């Protein structure tokens, strides 16, 4: 269980994260989604006690991170797979952490096996590919058998096979009652893995809900011969709408309402359909564009 309450971080005049609140429940995988620079990593750093928040509070299983006596036994963290000493072997990296966590040395080899790095155990991390370092980072996060996982861009640098493997691993972890939050800017990866989404843009939460809810609420998609005139006609008819980046409009109304309003204004339609097929990518662009207003799902 992760609880984030009104977390903010300012650097001088710049606000990196503003009033961010969300919870991650046991038994679920939450995708923390946003474009680069949206405040994902800053939020995860505040969650793990690496960056002091300007205001607000974050707790894991009811405690602030720094209050956990041996955090690695409660929460597995991977914030940057590249941040490993290149001169240590994979096995030594894990054994070092195992001794801090108070778990047997053999656990290091078990985890190397679990992430498929047994054959590279004696190689130095400097020779690992980014995908291998991600696997090592995940092995390190799992070392203390935590109930919570916090992973920043875990799919980064992984091949499709690695991504599928990780998806299975995380879903298995959540099915056993584990709590997972993973950040990403790769929408397709998140869509196939997560149950819930927290979308951050410009340091603020712009959407927070289950994948189904967020996809269902996306209304009707319409494209006209004259987008500007169609926009005016639908607005005049009292329909709430939002222009999409490709010239289409997303309207909070049924297809019939949109069709009638367009016909009344004599607008020619090229496309009219339920926009749920537009998928997460569309939602992502809408929610994180600078003009987007906060959407509470």
């Amino acid at each position, binding site marked *: 269980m992760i609880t984030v309450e009104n977390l903010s971080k300012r650097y001088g005049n710049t606000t990196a994260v503003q009033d961010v609140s969300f919870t991650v429940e046991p038994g679920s995988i939450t995708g923390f989604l946003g474009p680069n620079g949206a405040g994902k990593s800053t939020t995860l750093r505040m969650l793990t006690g690496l960056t002091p928040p300007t205001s607000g509070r974050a707790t894991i299983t009811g405690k602030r991170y720094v209050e956990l006596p041996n955090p690695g036994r409660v929460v597995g963290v991977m914030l940057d797979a590249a941040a490993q000493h290149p001169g240590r072997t994979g096995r030594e990296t894990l054994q070092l952490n195992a001794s801090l966590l108070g778990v047997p040395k053999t656990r290091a080899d078990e985890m190397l096996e679990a992430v498929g790095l047994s054959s590279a155990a004696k190689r130095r991390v400097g020779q690992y590919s980014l995908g291998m370092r991600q696997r090592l980072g995940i092995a390190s996060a799992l070392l203390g058998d935590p109930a919570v996982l916090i992973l920043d861009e875990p799919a980064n640098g992984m091949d499709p096979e690695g991504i599928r493997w990780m998806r299975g691993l995380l879903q298995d972890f959540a099915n056993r009652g584990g709590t997972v939050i993973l950040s990403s800017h790769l929408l397709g990866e998140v*869509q196939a893995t997560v149950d819930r989404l927290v979308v951050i843009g410009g340091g603020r939460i712009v959407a927070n809900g289950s994948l189904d809810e967020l996809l269902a609420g996306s209304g009707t998609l319409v494209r006209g011969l004259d987008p500007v005139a169609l926009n005016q006609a639908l607005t005049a008819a009292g329909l709430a709408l939002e222009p999409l980046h490709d010239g289409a409009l997303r309207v909070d109304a049924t297809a019939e309402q949109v069709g009638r309003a367009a016909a009344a204004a004599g607008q020619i339609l090229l496309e009219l359909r339920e926009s749920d097929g537009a998928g997460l990518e569309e939602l992502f662009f809408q929610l994180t564009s600078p003009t987007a207003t906060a959407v509470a799902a």
Partner: protein
Amino acid sequence: MAVTEIASPPTTAAAAGKHRAVATSLPPARGQSFLRLVVTELRKSLDTRSGRVLILAILALAVAALTWQLTHMDAGQQQFDSYLAAASTGVQLLLPVIGVMAMTSEWTQRTALTTFTLSPRRVRVQLAKFVSAIVLSIVVLTATTVLAMAATALGGATGGHGSSYAGLGGALAGAYLTTALNVVMGAAFGAVIAQTAVAILVFFIAPTAWALAGPALFKDNANWLDVFGAFGRIAERDLHGMLPETLTAIGVWIVLPTIVGLWASSRREVK
């Protein structure tokens, strides 16, 4: 978009409740004792090639100095303190680098990210690094001492005039004390300046610059901040009636950077 997979959203059974362990039952979670932290830091200093090379290079320097001493022997009885002085000059110069690197390498290599997520109480970790650096330097100095003793014996045997270990206790006490102070000073500089190269440069240049410029500018008053003078007096175990000056120099060059370094590294943002 690179990955667009057509997959239905997983229907994860929200089996809220106690997370079950995957592997065989692990021992119960306990806090990290300070001893555990020190042992971990010692291991980190030795489990990389660069760490081992630094230690071996320091010992190689001692061996080289002793070899030179043996091949350029004075006539007569061989004195242990001159062998120790020969062996430990380079060692004492380089050991503080162990202190500096104990504090800086995690920031340079970015492993601070892992270290401080596993042990979020940073001041404890930093103190463990100080202790680990002192322990390591004492081990290296002891190895150097043993080498110096062996060389003295060898010199005495081959020279035919025997060897003398007069003043052994005093020479060793001075050497260990100044080495420990030097290493703590190096570690303190490393804690303040988290960049290995910059910290080493400042560590070597700043006190030397003061030793050169201070007397010219402030005459005898420069003694108050002359840390080399303080080390010299401590090594001789005779403060020449300059206790306040010695304490001030130690306070400014060692205690103050230690406090500032602990404060700075506990607040520094881990990138």
